[in-house]
């Protein structure tokens, strides 16, 4: 089979939200788990204290062939957005002042959606990427996967790890993955994975979340990576950002 993605192991990282400690922990974990390629599924910016360093790190990966798409927070750096709540807007305004022109240009140049072989990478829903719709139901997952037109759709935005899979008649069903289990995801079926958030998980567990995809073996593994979340939270407080954002990183909420 002529397949450019076969033989690689792809790390899927989303919603880093300027959390450098979490990003570095996930990148190290992925490398040790055999990742040979990386995809960043949007929202490098927002919430956290290290936007410049996070963008610089991801830029390096992209220069070496990584995929990156734009998220709603990345877009909000560039243009005021009505989609964000007050706290998120405070963080975005602070980050807008922090980020270098080069970093902003990098974020501005990110595509909303990337299709490669059997995979569609998109931050929110592939149906209308710029609407930032939450994929939070089988019906939304079905809409996104149908628009993607690829066996695999990899997304973030929802900050939880979930796997939707297509059944007969194209209907999709929700599966809650168990961390560390390599789930068989044969490519004759439609799969939509929400890979969770690296920098701001919201399930009560502060450990960073990402996923690894092995296309040759057709296996997808959801991971949680404990990291120094207190350091990340302290930086948020010291930067003068809303203390609630630090609390969320500490509590994983």
């Amino acid at each position: 089979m002529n397949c450019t993605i076969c033989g690689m192991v792809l790390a899927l990282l989303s919603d880093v939200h300027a959390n450098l400690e979490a990003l570095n922990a996930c990148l190290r974990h992925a490398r040790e788990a055999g990742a040979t390629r990386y995809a960043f599924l949007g929202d490098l910016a927002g919430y956290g204290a290290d936007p410049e360093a996070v963008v610089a790190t991801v830029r390096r990966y992209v220069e070496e062939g990584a995929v990156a798409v734009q998220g709603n927070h990345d877009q909000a750096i560039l243009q005021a957005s009505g989609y964000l709540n007050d706290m998120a807007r405070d963080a975005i305004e602070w980050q807008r002042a922090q980020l270098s022109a080069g970093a902003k240009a990098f974020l501005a140049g990110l595509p909303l959606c990337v299709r490669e072989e059997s995979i569609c990478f998109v931050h929110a829903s592939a149906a209308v990427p710029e609407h930032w719709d939450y994929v939070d139901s089988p019906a939304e997952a079905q809409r996104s996967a149908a628009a993607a037109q690829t066996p695999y759709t990899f997304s973030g935005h929802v900050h939880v790890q979930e796997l939707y899979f297509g059944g007969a008649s194209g209907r999709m069903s929700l599966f809650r993955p168990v961390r560390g289990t390599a789930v068989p995801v044969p490519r004759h079926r439609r799969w939509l994975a929400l890979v969770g958030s690296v920098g701001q998980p919201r399930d009560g567990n502060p450990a960073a979340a990402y996923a690894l995809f092995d296309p040759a073996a057709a296996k997808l593994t959801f991971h949680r990576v404990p990291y120094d979340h207190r350091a990340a939270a302290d930086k948020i407080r010291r930067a003068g950002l809303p203390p609630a954002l630090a609390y969320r990183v500490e509590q994983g909420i």
Partner: protein
Amino acid sequence: MARKPDSPFQSGAEIDGFRIGERVHGGTMGDIFRVTGPDTGFPLAMKVPHFAPGDSDEGLINFETEANILPALSSPYVPRFVAAGDLSRAPYMVTEWIEGESLQRRLARGPLDPDEIARIGAAAADALHNLHLQDTVHLDLKPENVILRPDGRIALIDFGLAHHARFPDLLAEEQRLAAGSAPYISPEQVLGERSDPRSDLFALGAVLYELSTGKLPYGIPRTRAGLRDRIWLDPIPPVAHAPGVPPWLQEVILRCLEPQPEDRYQSAAHIAYDLRHPENVQLTSRATRRYQSPFASRLRRWWNARHVRPLTRTLPAAQVSAARVVLAAIDTTNLDDERHPAVLRVVARILSIPAEYRLICVSVIAGGPGAERTSGDSSHYLEHLVRLRNWVEPLRLPPSRLSLHVIEAANPADTLVEFARRNHVDLMVLGAPPPARTRVAWWRSVASTVAANADCSVHLVRAPAAAARGAVTSPASAAPESPDSPASRRPA
């Protein structure tokens, strides 16, 4: 069913390095061929499902389910997975070919006696327990899926309906009527529940019923209402069909067939244990029942079952682990051993955690070839049994949770390790090696060897310091621990 002439799967053909041999099974769902291929060290079989590429029918989902689950299992009780073909190109699966006779064929050859039924049932329970600990529920246990290997073990085949708790359940989402073989599936499976390991225990009960009586506990239901009967209807007791069924076997069978999963055995390990120790089966009213329950109580159960919905959300392995088998090893030759009360306190604490459990108390006494004495033909044996009973008496355990074993053996450590392995013990509790004293030095090697070799967790108990001192009567035995027994030091 004849193969389509254009099918690449013909005897003599070669697919992905596998040379196709004789077709050994052909059915509407697919064919099974013997194949040869890369040297795996064991014989191979190739399963070829019948469906057109792109189909989303049941055959495809069953095939995919098996192709997902089989490679994930590490078990001596299932065929080893070798390779699977691309589903969109050449769907096939190559696995180990299991030598042996199916239980269905064995059943057709003639009736089985209770000992043989118990042996097969225990072997099947071993296999189910192994699967359940790997978060997998078979959900299609029936005689044709049980292969009796020549060495007495069994293999379970056909995982097309199985459920793996950590994989997406492709079957659950198709919202079809309950999948499974109507005569054997559990009430909760009828209702669409696919994640409860106790469903397999119900099916095992139905298989044991069939082996014992030649009949099926609920016949072969042909309607949905007929299938639902088992939610509230109790089967005709096996002894009513076959007077030779002993009470212990009927007890095991009817307990497996309880409509409510919580009334059944909670773990296949407990069934395996009971079937291997018929004398230990705690008989209830099930054992001697001769008729179905009276009409009024059936009516009440039917009424109560109107809105029954299944409810389980624990991973199978976690559920099975909650149903523990705890073994307490007690040296009944040394009655005044100060560790005996300490072990008792620890066992009491372990059993106080709310969960289904079974406590097995074992005393290994010197002599003998390792054979267990199960009958009271020796006063020596009886005396130790009485001592064991006396030791455990303060726990006031219901007999259904407790069993006592006195084993004569030359090597107590190996005997305990092997006994624990055979009986799926999760945790063994025994006294830690004491300070060096010749009188009890025997136990030191036992504790350390058991801790080193046991498959299960081992809890070594030390007598509290004061109690240990109180038990010392001779000044010589109060000497400090010998330096060559590091294992005897108290934890800091």
